[in-house]
């Protein structure tokens, strides 16, 4: 009944602005937190700057593919990560957004949206991603007028309604399951084939109020004051049709939060940061880990592992410098 998420009302914790950090981590999701853990254990002067803790773990109800946990709430997993890191006294500057990074003689200058700048010898970019948009007509117009990017937040508004879930990965399948207690009917629309785990698809098979339209592309969200449906293209018959619905939950993956390092590190066409096998970016001493990198499988355990790898690689880099 209660979901705790606070330890202090302070916008900032003790966070040294003067010292030269060994390893500064930007981002408080699984990659950043695990990097903090590994770096601290190695004895590095490490700190984490984050807008929020847990990142996208907060957008999901259940996690059932993190080794060691058959079923855990996203929030609970995030809390246990945070506790592990704070038990080691890794300083965390919360509710702070990094706006720019630049190079100076001894390392890097990290600018934030607060009135503080920080200096560090090496750094990790692990700012993750945010929900990807369809980028089709009507999406902006009907945002929060039927169109939603957070199923657990907005599902209650669609009680006894017909809703569509856009997407074919695990998040889309989870979204369907989160909507089951509320919606009268759920329709999945996806432009290609399912990518979700079989174990989730088996659960969907058991639903009797679920319609699935694969190979179907969403062209436009239509409506008046609120959305009333979608115009879609059936790619197998090449025919357009309209699916009437009261809501659309968009679960088509994420886009990287990498705008603040545009031009600083090399990225691919999707704005994902390029890294080598040591998680190092195109700039020596700057590492990246988690959903922000070009690594295609956006998974909690992979992000956490990349964070660990980046911290160990930063240690090696500092030792050989």
């Amino acid at each position, binding site marked *: *009944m*209660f*979901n*705790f*998420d*606070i*330890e202090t*009302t*302070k*916008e*900032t914790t003790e966070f040294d602005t003067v010292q030269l950090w060994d390893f500064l981590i930007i981002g408080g999701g699984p990659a950043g937190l695990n990097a903090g853990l590994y770096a601290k254990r190695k004895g590095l002067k490490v700190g984490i700057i984050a807008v*929020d803790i847990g990142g996208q773990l*907060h*957008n999901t109800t259940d996690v059932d593919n993190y080794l060691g946990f058959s079923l855990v709430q996203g*929030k609970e997993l995030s809390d246990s990560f945070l506790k592990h890191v704070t038990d080691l006294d890794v300083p965390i500057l919360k509710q702070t*957004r990094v706006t720019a990074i630049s190079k100076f003689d001894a390392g890097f200058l990290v600018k934030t*949206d*607060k*009135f503080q700048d920080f200096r560090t010898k090496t750094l990790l970019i692990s700012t993750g991603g945010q929900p990807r948009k369809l980028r089709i007509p009507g999406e902006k117009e009907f*945002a*929060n*007028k*039927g*169109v*939603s990017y*957070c199923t*657990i*937040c*907005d*599902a*209650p*508004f*669609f009680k006894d309604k017909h809703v569509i879930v856009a997407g074919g990965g695990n998040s889309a399948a989870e979204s369907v399951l989160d909507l089951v207690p509320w919606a009268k009917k759920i329709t999945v629309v996806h432009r290609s084939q399912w990518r979700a785990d079989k174990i989730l698809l088996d659960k969907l098979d058991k639903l009797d109020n679920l319609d699935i339209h694969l190979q179907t592309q969403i062209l436009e969200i239509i409506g008046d*004051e*609120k959305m009333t449906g979608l115009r879609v293209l059936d790619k197998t018959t090449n025919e357009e049709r309209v699916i009437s619905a009261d*809501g659309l939950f968009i679960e088509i993956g994420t886009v990287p939060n990498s705008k603040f390092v545009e031009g600083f590190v090399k990225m691919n066409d999707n704005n994902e940061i390029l890294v080598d096998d040591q998680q190092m970016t195109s700039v020596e001493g700057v590492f990246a880990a988690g959903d922000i990198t070009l690594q295609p499988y956006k998974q909690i355990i992979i992000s956490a592992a990349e964070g660990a790898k980046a911290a160990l690689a930063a240690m090696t880099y500092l030792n050989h410098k």
Partner: protein
Amino acid sequence: MNKLLNEEVTNQVKEFLKPMKEAITFVLFTKSGECITCEETRALLNEVSALNDLISLVEKDLEINSDEASLFDVTLAPSFIILDKDGVYQGVKFNGIPAGHEINSFLTAVLDMSGLDYQLDPAIIERLSKIDKDVNIKVFVTLSCPHCPGAVSKAHRLAMLNSHVNAEMIEAQTFSALSQKYNVSGVPKIVINETHELTGNQPLEAFLDELERL
């Protein structure tokens, strides 16, 4: 009725409230007859106020005590406001029970009102001090929304820092008619002075941008 807060949560809340500095008062408005979550909200406020000597609870009836209700512009039940150490209403109001994720905005408001410094950027305080029009901020939430408490706390802090501003959480399911009136189908939805809207847990700067446009 069983206790709302189990032993573990009770201990967490108690620990969390330890840094409170000054006394505060909850003024709760309920009504007789059908009232979704009135009982639960009363229980929550009773249980939380029992955990720290600095908190007191006053209960009112929305209809019988209509004078007090209009004094604090309370029109819904359950609804409660938090008064500061001098009994002054700083514009911090909750409509509906702050359970689920909203326990965070509730306890944050308690600590903030009890005199804790939340170390805002001086630039933000400077901008806020220049707002001299009356501002009402409504933040619609669902209890399953992890992004909502952040938006509620920011709105409440703006209210505490500027006497022209008042801010209220509205639990969208309890007050579904009101949610429909404001076309809420995604949360957090922030409505400022009936005309300006924001969605999502926006930074304080985004609130201020809207406030400056009024």
